[in-house]
């Protein structure tokens, strides 16, 4: 299987990733992207080691492949799949949202439902072949499936200027030429390919934009406009332990007439087909099951920081603090429990794809916009000003003129200044740094704006049952019931 060496080497392919007004020479060597590339490489190394239990035999070739790229067919598969997702999530402590298993899960589910892509052009076969390519080569796919934020009052066809959102500019015998932009490929700068589509509802007038395709990041005419990288602002690992490893970077994609061969096209000028690919295939459920496994892992890590800080500051016996730690425990457990429930209620669909239970999964997702800020809020409260009562950098801890002050004034009972500062700098990178701020937005938006995600929760909850309960109850009494008697009893 692919190792970090293979992966890192493959990134030097002439891709156009723009930072500070010009293309980056080589992402694998650039200080903004090398750290996340290294982290992703480590994930591939973990999967390539059979000891980590992430491999499964591809029945078609007989070769070992990463289980995350294979659609679960039964309860045992799904349990093993979850365990594998956990192995990767543990390695990043949940701080990498778009590890290769996220879109990998989407592609796995696509492959179990090729009929959802079927049309006369053979798009279903393209999906199968794509899945095979991803699985056999351990590809890292990122995705950009949201139209650029131009105006949400209308959709692409009504925007000023042609092809603001990426659309089909030209159809050729051998493929299509696309032009326009799409937001916001997290990890795109260090991925192999990007799946480009649109999950936001379109109208029949948006047919030219109703497409789904994959594109190599190095494709001619494709530019990635990156937001400011945070890894370069990290003065050291010690000062910014999260920014310096896990900054995935997010990029706006601009397609300046990019040629996409037919084999890489999965949905073509088909508005209903866009939704079918995500929702009739189970891809949205499986991909977000992975996302919640990752999310729970990150929450656990945040709870760990909180627990440790409370102990270091000697506040962890105060009832008010115990209450906060209890609330944190509840919040983390709610997400973990939703994962258990989604696994418990998982079932095979008519295609034999074993899908996590949607009600439980979307229940957790529907609360994420409240739950994550609350967890961060509690942690921010518990750390107090300690996250700012830290030296500007690790230098103060090692320079002889300053180290003594640090040891005397910035330490806590039982731990050295180095240990204390290390912990509080980690806490700051989790709640206060620019990286942390980006994570707040990420958790709020990665699977859609909160109103969208709550829509999933609504649609995947069977309201018939509660309605029935209320109807039945309402029908059990009327205006001529024994109300008076009850009132008398109560007042007696």
């Amino acid at each position, binding site marked *: 299987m692919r190792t970090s060496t293979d992966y890192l080497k493959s990134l030097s392919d002439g891709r156009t990733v723009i930072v500070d007004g010009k293309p980056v020479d080589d992402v694998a060597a650039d200080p903004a992207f090398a750290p996340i590339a290294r982290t992703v490489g480590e994930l591939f190394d973990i999967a390539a080691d059979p000891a980590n239990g992430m491999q499964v035999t591809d029945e078609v070739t007989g070769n070992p492949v990463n289980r995350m790229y294979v659609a679960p067919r039964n309860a045992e598969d799904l349990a093993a799949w979850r365990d594998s997702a956990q192995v990767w999530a543990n390695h990043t402590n949940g701080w990498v949202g778009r590890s290769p298993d996220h879109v990998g899960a989407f592609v796995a589910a696509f492959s179990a439902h090729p009929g959802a892509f079927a*049309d006369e052009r053979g798009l279903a*076969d393209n999906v199968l072949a794509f899945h*095979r390519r991803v699985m056999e080569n351990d590809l890292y796919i990122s995705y950009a499936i949201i139209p650029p934020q131009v105006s949400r009052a209308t959709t692409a066809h009504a925007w000023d200027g042609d092809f603001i959102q990426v659309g089909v500019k030209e159809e050729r015998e051998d493929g299509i030429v696309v032009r326009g932009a799409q937001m916001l490929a997290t990890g795109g700068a260090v991925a192999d390919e990007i799946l480009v589509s649109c999950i936001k509802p379109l109208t029949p007038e948006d047919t030219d934009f109703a497409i789904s395709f994959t594109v190599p990041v190095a494709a001619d005419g494709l530019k990635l406009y990156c937001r400011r990288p945070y890894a370069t602002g990290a003065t050291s690992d010690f000062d910014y332990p999260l920014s310096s490893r896990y900054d995935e970077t997010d990029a706006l994609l601009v397609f300046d007439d990019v040629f996409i061969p037919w084999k890489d096209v999965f949905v073509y000028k088909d508005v209903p087909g866009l939704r079918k690919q995500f929702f009739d295939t189970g891809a949205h459920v499986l991909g977000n099951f992975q996302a919640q496994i990752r999310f729970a892992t990150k929450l656990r890590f945040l709870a760990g920081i909180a627990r440790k800080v409370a102990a270091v500051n000697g506040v962890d016996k105060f009832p008010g603090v115990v209450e906060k730690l209890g609330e944190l425990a509840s919040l983390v457990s709610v997400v973990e429990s939703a994962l258990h429930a989604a696994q418990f209620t998982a079932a095979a669909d*008519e295609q*034999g794809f074993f899908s996590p239970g949607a009600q439980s999964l979307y229940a957790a997702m529907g609360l994420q916009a409240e739950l994550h800020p609350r967890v961060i809020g509690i942690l921010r409260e518990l750390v107090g000003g300690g996250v700012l009562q830290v030296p500007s950098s690790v230098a103060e801890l090692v320079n002889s003129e300053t180290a003594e002050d640090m040891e005397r004034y910035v330490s806590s009972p039982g731990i050295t200044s180095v240990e204390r500062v290390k912990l509080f700098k980690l806490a700051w990178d989790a709640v206060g740094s620019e990286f942390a701020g980006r994570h707040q937005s990420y958790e709020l938006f990665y699977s859609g704006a909160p109103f969208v995600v709550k829509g999933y929760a609504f649609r995947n909850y069977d309201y018939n049952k509660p309605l029935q309960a209320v109807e039945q109850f309402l029908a059990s009494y009327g205006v001529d019931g024994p109300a008076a008697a009850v009132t008398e009893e109560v007042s007696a």
Partner: protein
Amino acid sequence: MTTTPTTGSPAGTATRLRLRATDGAEVEVTPTHLVVAGYTGRDRAAVQHHIDELAAIGVPEPDTIPAFYPLATTCLTTDQQIEVDGTKTSGEVEPVLIRANGTYYLTVGSDHTDREMEKVGIQLSKAACPKPIADTVIELGDPPALVDWDSIVVRSWVDGELYQEGTLATMLPITEVLDEWDQIGGSQGIALVLFGGTRPLIDGTFRYGRDWRMQLEVPGHTPIELSYTVSVRSN
């Protein structure tokens, strides 16, 4: 290698196929007709384009689209070994519809074909080789209830290497191919085995291997498998 009772029955003796339904029930079929369909692409314009391309290099146009090649039922076999005369023969995975016993069955077969002879005539090239089919079938009932056709995936391997893989979505559903045949062949009421056409090869070049494996995966069912070995008859 000689044939077993299921194949190569002497002329005039009926070929009898002993099959098993996916629920374990035994199924016996004595087909009276075997028809291999070609040019079963769903996109008629693309099919015509392909025919025109072939015509340009001298391959005669088929009489009908889809094209039908009736063969002797004695070509059918569920054997794990087949013998051929040519050295350039290869398999092709195809869905196979069987209409018999008042019901319909779906299985997988290989339109094993002599590629040298293809230049002489398609019918000849097809007739030159046995047609292996799996011994497991999915009973579809009557009328045949085709599970989601577009999601059916077929695969073939030659000598352990993947040779074909894809859905049947670009091909006419086999029941429609059958309707076309019934209009031409008027074969209602007979025991028919219909090969429904194949899909492109992964790398576009024929392979003349020894070990063939074919698979038809209907979503929600255990995949139906067929494996056979080819040997060249020595004379």
